[in-house]
C-alpha cells in the first residue's frame, strides 16, 4: 500500500487516505459490512472444527464485505465536499484514496476474522489426527484472507462508480462479482481457499503466496483502471 501511495504523489495522498479512512470510521459506515462478515462467520464456523477448513471459509466470507466496503468508500463523500477534494488533488488520486481506505478496512476485518477463527477452532487436520503448528496455520489463514480481501476490493472497484454508475447496475454487479471470484476456477481467491482446505485434508500447511501475488496484481490493475476512468470522467 505504501508503494501505491508513494507512486501516486506522496504526502497529499497520505492525507487523502487519512481523510477517507476518517469518513469510513467516523460515519460508522463500516458497521454494516463488518456485521455481515461477523454473521457469516457465526453461522458457518463452529468451535472445535479443523482450523484450516474454518480459515478457508472465513477468507472466502470476506470477499463480499470487502467489495461492499469499496462501494461505501467511493460514495462516502457528499458531492459538494468531493468537488473541493477533487479540485485540490485530482479525481484519480481522490478515487485511489477511497479504494485504499476500503482496503485498509478489509484488511482489518481479515486480521480480526483470522484471529477469532484461530481462537475457537482445533489446530488439527480434517480428521483431527495430525496436529498443525499454530504460527504457519495462522500465516496461511491470514494470507488467504488478504487474497480474498484484495479480490473483493478489485470487484468493488470495477462494479461501482465511476466504472458502473447507479445502484441498479452496481449492486448486482458487486454481488455477482464477489461470488464469481470465489467460485471461478482461475481465481486466486478460489486457489487460496482450496489450498487451505486441501492442506487440511492432508495435514499440511501451505502458505498461499502465489494466489496472494496474483490477487495483488489483479487488484492493482482493477484499481488503476477505476482511477483512470475517474480521472477521465472527472
Amino acid at each position, binding site marked *: 500500500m505504501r508503494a501505491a501511495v508513494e507512486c501516486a504523489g506522496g*504526502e*497529499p495522498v497520505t*492525507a*487523502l487516505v*487519512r*481523510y477517507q479512512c*476518517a*469518513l469510513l470510521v*467516523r*460515519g*460508522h459506515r463500516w458497521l454494516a459490512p463488518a456485521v455481515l462478515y461477523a454473521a457469516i462467520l457465526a453461522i458457518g464456523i463452529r468451535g472445535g472444527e479443523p482450523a484450516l477448513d474454518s480459515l478457508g471459509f472465513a477468507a472466502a466470507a470476506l470477499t463480499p464485505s470487502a467489495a461492499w466496503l469499496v462501494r461505501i468508500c467511493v460514495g*462516502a*463523500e*457528499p458531492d*459538494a*465536499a468531493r*468537488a*473541493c*477534494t*477533487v*479540485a*485540490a*488533488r*485530482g*479525481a484519480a488520486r481522490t478515487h485511489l484514496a477511497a479504494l485504499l481506505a476500503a482496503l485498509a478496512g478489509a484488511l482489518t476485518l481479515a486480521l480480526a476474522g483470522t484471529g477469532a477463527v484461530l481462537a475457537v477452532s482445533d489446530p488439527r487436520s480434517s480428521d483431527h489426527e495430525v496436529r498443525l503448528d499454530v504460527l504457519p496455520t495462522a500465516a496461511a489463514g491470514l494470507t488467504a484472507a488478504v487474497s480474498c480481501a484484495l479480490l473483493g476490493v478489485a470487484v468493488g472497484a470495477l462494479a461501482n462508480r465511476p466504472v458502473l454508475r447507479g445502484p441498479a447496475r452496481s449492486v448486482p454487479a458487486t454481488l455477482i462479482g464477489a461470488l464469481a471470484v470465489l467460485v471461478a476456477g482461475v481465481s486466486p481467491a478460489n486457489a487460496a481457499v482450496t489450498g487451505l482446505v486441501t492442506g487440511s485434508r492432508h495435514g499440511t500447511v501451505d502458505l498461499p503466496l502465489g494466489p496472494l501475488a496474483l490477487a495483488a496484481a489483479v487488484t492493482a490493475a482493477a484499481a488503476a483502471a477505476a482511477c483512470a476512468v475517474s*480521472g*477521465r*470522467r*472527472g
Partner: protein
Amino acid sequence: MRLEGVGRRYGVRGPWVLRGVELGLPPGGGVVRVEGANGSGKSTLLRLLAGIDRPSAGRISGRPSRTAYVPERFPATGLPFTARGWLVHLGRVHGLGSGEARARAGEWLERFGAAEFAGAPLDELSKGTCQKVAVAQGLLADPGLLVLDEAWTGLDAAARGALDVAVGELAARGSTVVFVDHDPSRLPGADRWQVAAGAVTPARTAPYAVITVSGPEDAPLPPDVVAVRTGDRVSLTVPDERADEVLRELLTCEPPWSVRGVSR
C-alpha cells in the same frame, strides 16, 4: 494557465455546453468574473478550470498545483466531522502540515465570524455557517487558483465583505481568482469573461478607480468595495461612477481616512 480548444458536452452525443474555448488566465494573478445567462455554461467553465470536470475536447495546461474550489451550496450532511476537523483534513489534503492546517482553520473561521462553531458537528450547522466553512476551505492553503461558484450566496453581509477582502489579498499575492456571482457590483475591478452560446469571450472591463488611503486600524471601510491592505495602506478598487461617493465616505467617516492617491 491556458485553455486550448476546450469543449465540454455531457454524453457522447449530447449538445456542446462549451466549445472551442481559447483562453489564458492573467499570468501575474488577478481576478476574473465569469458572466452569462442561466444555463450558459458558467458553472461548467468553473468546474473545468478547477479540474473537477474534464474537457471532452481540447486541453487545459498550467493549472497551479494548489487549486481550491468553493461550491455555491455546501450541504454537509454525511460529513461526520466538526467544522475544524473537516478543515484540518482538507488543509492536509491541500498539502499543509497538521499544526498549520489547524491554526489556519481557526484563523479563517474567525475572519468569517464562525469561530464559535469550530467545534460543532458540520451537520448541526446552519446553511450560512456551512458556507463559511466551505469558503474557509478555499482560502486555507493560499491557493494559486481559487474558483468561487457563487460562494457569496448564503453568507451574511460581514462574511461577504470578508470574502471580498480575502480575494483582494490573494490576487495581490499573485494568485488567480475566478468567480461567478449574481451581484453585478461584486469585485468591480475584475476582468470579465462572457459565456454565451458555448463560447467564452473576454469582455471589456468597466472603467474603475483605485483609491489609496491610510488611517487608524479601526477606521470603517465603505461597504461593497474591494479593499487590499498592505502595511498601513489600503487600496480600494471601485467603479468609476462610484469613486466620488466612496471618497466622500472615506473622508467623512469617524475616524477619517487620509487619501494618499487616486488613479484610474
